[in-house]
């Protein structure tokens, strides 16, 4: 074999590095990089505030969601002690998981796993069995894979996943815990933003076939309550930017990241010293789970569990005003029942 001289070697290296750099430059220099396409709007129904007293929920079918009958309830609220039955019967009442996904879909579940400080009993993180059952239900409906992820604000994801008990349940159910690594965050423009024009979002959150927002309902100093909309802050990189002009910026984010389904865990709710918690005396057992395609409506209903009105939360009012969902949950078709079994 011909011996490669140093000069030849350098030439080859030069060509190699040059072509990689060129590819890099070309791909990086497209004129006016359009913001990566936002996935098809999930069916956040009545975009106009509905003054009518007759609820007419019209879930718009999109390419990921099968056509639904008009009879499906807008909100489902379940009461009972068994988290697994909550999810199974709640999803069924909402029309079944098949309504939200096709077979072979890629599903992301976004619970609240904010810190690795306490176990689920302290109600700072979402109930692990609720998340686990949800994974099972998605897989049973034919999901190709189900990933569960959150970006904790204290400690590492690894520790938080473990401490919350969610990792154990998700793995047992056949799902994956994914660590949200910085490489996959992309800067997105937010069209029609009031205050937050750009933010870096974990790409898969926006491109997945089905995004399920599974917050735990709890107290929060700034937001008053952290529910479905507030839980979306775990999908972006720079949370600090949201804390300023919070009530507008959170809604700006909600126009970009739109979960297809919101399930609020109010089995155990943290009534004070949130969002981190640590006192069992601050935890109120409510044994309730709320389901809706409309995050705003689900959040609005959840305020009642804390003796509040949706109007008390500035960001909910703003979200409703900007057509993201309904504040008047009393006027929609609610199916509320006690789970059996």
């Amino acid at each position, binding site marked *: 074999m011909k011996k490669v001289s140093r000069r030849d070697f350098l030439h080859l290296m030069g060509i190699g590095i040059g072509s990689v750099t060129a590819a890099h430059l070309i791909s990086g220099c497209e004129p006016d990089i359009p913001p990566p396409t936002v996935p098809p709007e999930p069916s956040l129904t009545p975009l106009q505030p509905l003054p009518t007293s007759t609820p007419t929920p019209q879930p718009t079918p999109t390419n990921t969601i099968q056509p639904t009958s008009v009879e499906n309830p807008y909100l489902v609220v379940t009461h009972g002690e068994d988290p697994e039955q909550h999810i199974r019967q709640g999803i069924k009442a909402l029309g079944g998981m098949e309504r939200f996904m096709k077979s072979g879909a890629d599903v992301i579940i976004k619970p609240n796993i904010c810190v690795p400080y306490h176990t689920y009993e302290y109600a700072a993180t979402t109930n692990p069995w609720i998340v686990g059952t949800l994974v099972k239900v998605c897989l049973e409906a034919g999901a190709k894979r189900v990933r569960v992820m959150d970006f904790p604000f204290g400690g590492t994801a690894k*520790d938080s996943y473990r401490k919350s008990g969610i990792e154990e349940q998700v793995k047992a159910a056949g799902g994956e815990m994914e660590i949200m*690594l910085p490489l996959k965050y992309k800067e997105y423009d937010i069209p029609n933003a009031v205050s937050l024009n750009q933010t870096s979002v974990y790409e898969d959150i926006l491109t997945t076939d089905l995004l399920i927002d599974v917050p735990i309902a709890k107290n929060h100093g700034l937001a008053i309550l952290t529910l479905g909309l507030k839980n979306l802050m775990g999908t972006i990189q720079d949370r600090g930017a949201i*804390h300023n002009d919070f009530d507008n910026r959170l809604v700006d984010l909600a126009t970009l990241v739109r979960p297809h389904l919101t399930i609020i865990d109010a089995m155990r709710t943290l009534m004070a010293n949130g969002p981190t918690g640590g006192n069992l005396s601050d935890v109120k057992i409510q044994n309730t789970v709320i389901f809706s395609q409309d995050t705003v409506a689900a959040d609005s209903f959840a305020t009642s569990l804390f003796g509040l009105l949706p109007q008390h939360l500035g960001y909910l009012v703003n979200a409703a005003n900007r057509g993201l969902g309904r504040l008047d949950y009393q006027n929609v078709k609610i199916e509320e029942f006690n789970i059996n079994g």
Partner: protein
Amino acid sequence: MDKPPHSRHWSGRIAWVTARKITQGLALLGFTVLIITTGMDRAAYTLANFPIRLSPLAMLASLICSRTFLSGMTVSLLLIFSSLVVGRAWCGWLCPLGTILEIFQFRKTKKDTRIPERMRAAKYGFLIVILLSAIFSNLTLLIFDPLTIFTRTMTLTILPVFDQLFTAIEKLFVSIPFLSNAVYRFDLLIRPVILPVKPAVFQYAILTGFFFVAIILLNLLAERFWCRYLCPLGAFLGLFSRLSLFKRRVKDDCAKCHLCEVHCPTGTIDPQKDYSSDPAECTLCMNCLRDCPKKALSFSPTFSRAPRREYDPGRRTLLNSLLVSVTLSALLSIEWIRKYPRNHFLRPPGAARDAFSSACIRCGLCMKVCPTGGLQVDLSQSGIEAAGTPILVPRLGYCQFSCNACGQICPVGAIPLLDLKEKQNAVIGKAYIEHDRCIAWSDHQTCIVCEEMCPLPQKAITLDSGKFVAPDGSSITISLPVVNREMCIGCGICENKCPVAGEAAIRVYTT
């Protein structure tokens, strides 16, 4: 095909050198993998600090200084016993720093006449100074223990640099459309195992790197300069090696051909003394065994004490070292910082503030395991004496409420092993709000980040409400954060997350 006639009887002796090189490679790999995986997962901390506990120098100095015996220290007896049997084989076969110095061997000329043999005494002096200083409650010079050098440099410099390169290459390839998915999958698979989620940043990382490079550059003066003349651990093992069982012996059929002398990495083979060597210097590298055409060498068991050398430590070395130690202690005691202690200078949770410098062996493992990157190396916040010890820098990382990793990893208990409940009550400092710079107090805008972040179950930061008059004359009500210093443990997450640029508007001070 005919084999060269001599290949048969040579092969066994070449095998020794090959075996050594393989052992060195595996050992270096092992030490590297161990330090990379340390703290990546909360398991097997006992194994993770094993390399540090191997060092009899660090363990003995710590024992003298803290007067506390820990059962983990007994691991270092392994090295002492091994030197009684096979001399400084540790240096030639296992020591990670030794292997690195062998890799970066610039100089092929073996016998360096410019450096006098007496220079070898330096390492003994160094060793005695370290041990005497330990009696005077000073452990500063343990930054020169080869095992701490290796761990510290890997943690503070080499791994963070590797992380940056790794990330840069990934970013380059992720921009190529058809590769991006593969890169994402690779990143997800590899990074959580070997690197922190966010690249680690350490203050004085460059200085630590220079220190390491300087040691390597000493190789320009002579092969394995550090091991021959400076290494205090080598000196420690050398003292025992004089009694070692397996020593190099030259038989009568030596042809005085110089070959062994030429390839001796420590230059201890002396033609003037019938090509004999000093067992306190010999690393049993087996090069001479390989090179001897006459098979005139053996490493057979001998019960004897090595003859005294001109550079061996004696009464004079001891006296000089005593003088140096005393001077050093005196010098350190005139540091101005002792009269003016910094109050924004925090120790790891549970660590004694004043005595910490006399307990810490400066291995840097705590900085490796700290999940937030808050534990940083100190250079002079509390005086040069404390160089190399860990401090908590909240702006870079906070003490995570449910983590006690530093106490678990510390090989000498300088950071005490606290259970989580105890750690959560260990006061590191107390937070103070600088009202003039606080967004809520000064700008009258809504910001409650410090309250939100406070991990205490009852929140040591609470919200008060204040009424202010806005520029347009209207009255506004703002939530104002207030620190309850009775409760505050000074974990520093408030300081870390404070959105004010530069120095935070809430800072943790020692009390």
